[in-house]
């Protein structure tokens, strides 16, 4: 099996290095006391409102990390669920975390137990509230849909990676009148969530959630670093459009940027001033 390496593609190696540098520099800036701004995300402001409604109705809150296996998406989803659980613990609201991946389930049990401990209510933690249902897509979907219907949940939080089952969750939640907040990195599922949920967190807003909720300097700094990297992408695109319009798409530098090769191609291009 062949794997990709930095040596195969100079462009990706430089971009990854730049993003890492931008993120780390801004984390350092934030730790040194720089005041960093984060814009309002209405979907995240609504989390407390949804928990309040569940508490008033005495009905459970469901949290679904999707079918994602354990990785950065799952860690981010569990970080959000940990925050929600801390809020829930203050009001003793019932909760269910439903997992479709066993590794996520194992970490979720620990994270939720920690959340109750940190909220000062370890007595409220029930391991049965964090459930592994199935690792088969539609068996998991039917398990979640059944639980939402039977327990008439009042708030439904879906954060993670979702596939065709997303609409089954969101529409079932809609049928029982739950407040629904979804956040996903699966952009093909975003239209379904937008149509069926009250609030949807789109794309990289998902990764901004923990910074938004915790306001920790490390996370805020990382977020500013990500924005600088996005600006770089936008400027590269704009620069590419202008350069291609002026020099033509056959210009050697445009070809190099469009189809980047290894370091050899890069140095050859640099040494020859953009020529071949």
């Amino acid at each position: 099996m062949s794997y990709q390496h930095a040596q195969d593609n100079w462009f990706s190696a430089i971009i990854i290095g730049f993003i890492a540098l931008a993120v780390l520099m801004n984390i350092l800036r934030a730790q040194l006391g720089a005041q960093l701004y984060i814009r309002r995300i209405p979907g995240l402001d609504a989390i407390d409102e949804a928990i309040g409604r569940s508490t008033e109705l005495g009905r459970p809150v469901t949290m679904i990390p999707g079918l994602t296996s354990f990785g950065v998406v799952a860690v981010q989803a569990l970080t959000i669920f940990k925050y929600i659980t801390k809020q829930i613990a203050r009001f003793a609201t019932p909760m269910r975390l439903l997992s479709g991946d066993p590794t996520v389930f194992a970490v979720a049990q620990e994270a939720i137990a920690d959340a109750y401990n940190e909220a000062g209510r370890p007595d409220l933690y029930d391991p049965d509230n964090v459930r592994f249902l199935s690792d088969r897509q539609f068996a998991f979907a039917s398990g979640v849909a059944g639980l939402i219907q039977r327990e008439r949940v009042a708030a439904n939080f879906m954060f993670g990676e979702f596939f065709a089952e997303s609409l089954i969750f969101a529409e079932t939640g809609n049928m029982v009148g739950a407040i629904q907040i979804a956040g996903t990195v699966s952009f093909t599922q975003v239209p379904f969530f937008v149509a069926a949920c009250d609030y949807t967190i789109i794309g990289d807003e998902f990764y901004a959630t923990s910074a938004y909720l915790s306001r920790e300097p490390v996370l805020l700094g990382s977020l500013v670093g990500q924005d600088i990297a996005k600006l770089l992408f936008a400027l590269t695109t704009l620069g590419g459009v202008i350069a291609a319009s002026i020099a033509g798409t056959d210009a050697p530098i445009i070809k190099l940027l469009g189809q980047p090769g290894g370091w050899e191609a890069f140095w050859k291009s640099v040494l020859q001033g953009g020529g071949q």
Partner: protein
Amino acid sequence: MVVLTNLMAQQTIWRLPEESRVLFATLIVAGAFVLILGLIPVLQTLPPRGRRAIVVTVTFLAGLFFAAEFFLPVDWTAIFPKDDPKRNFLTPAIQPAQNVLQIIGALALGLGTFGLVRLHLRNAVQRRAQWGYSIVLLVSFVVMAAFSILNTLAEKKIVERGPVLERGFAILFDHTLIQLDAAMFSLVAFYIFSAAYRAFRIRSVEASILMFTAMLVMIGVVPLGAQISPALPTIANWVLAQLNAPAQRAIEFGVGIGGLAMAIRLWLSLERGVT
């Protein structure tokens, strides 16, 4: 160092001869057990700060392995002539590392299944609300597991595949489980309809634009659209390629950068959420 250099030159460090593999694998498994059994008591006696230091170190080393494998040059033939020019000395270890992740996943599956069975057994024994569903789940679980294990054993020629096993497996998997999966999937079609109805209701200027564009695309991509007007497929393709695709790419860029930043935070243990 000389031994290691020789091994690298001969590429035998990851490619053991056939007869040594079983012994080597047994030694690795036994070593891992000893390490885990020794590590758990040590971790429990350590104060939280010490435990965190171990976790931070292991996380950093594991991340460093994958980062180094990606960034290190691949062509080492000038030093090791027999080496493959498309990989560095860490590349062959990628697959074993991924196998370790699969093994952890398999162990966690056992943990998840145990939790599920324990919950429903308790429901059934204590006759909690809707305990009938728990009985259905437990019976299905046992029957499915039994037939699945027997079928695997039959495939490996350890047990004989009798007519009961063959018919039972076909009924449970081909005629029940797959059909139930299909039934669940088909629900999506109805849910799309109800969700689309809500989304396309004309309540604002944005909703009107959304509905108008969606109708153009839907009509344009089906043969009926071309029959109505040859311009419709062109318009639909223009909307998909010039408006939809760039927006999706922009979201993908953002998600990719966010994921990379999160991975860096996890690697350097700067993320305190669930770690």
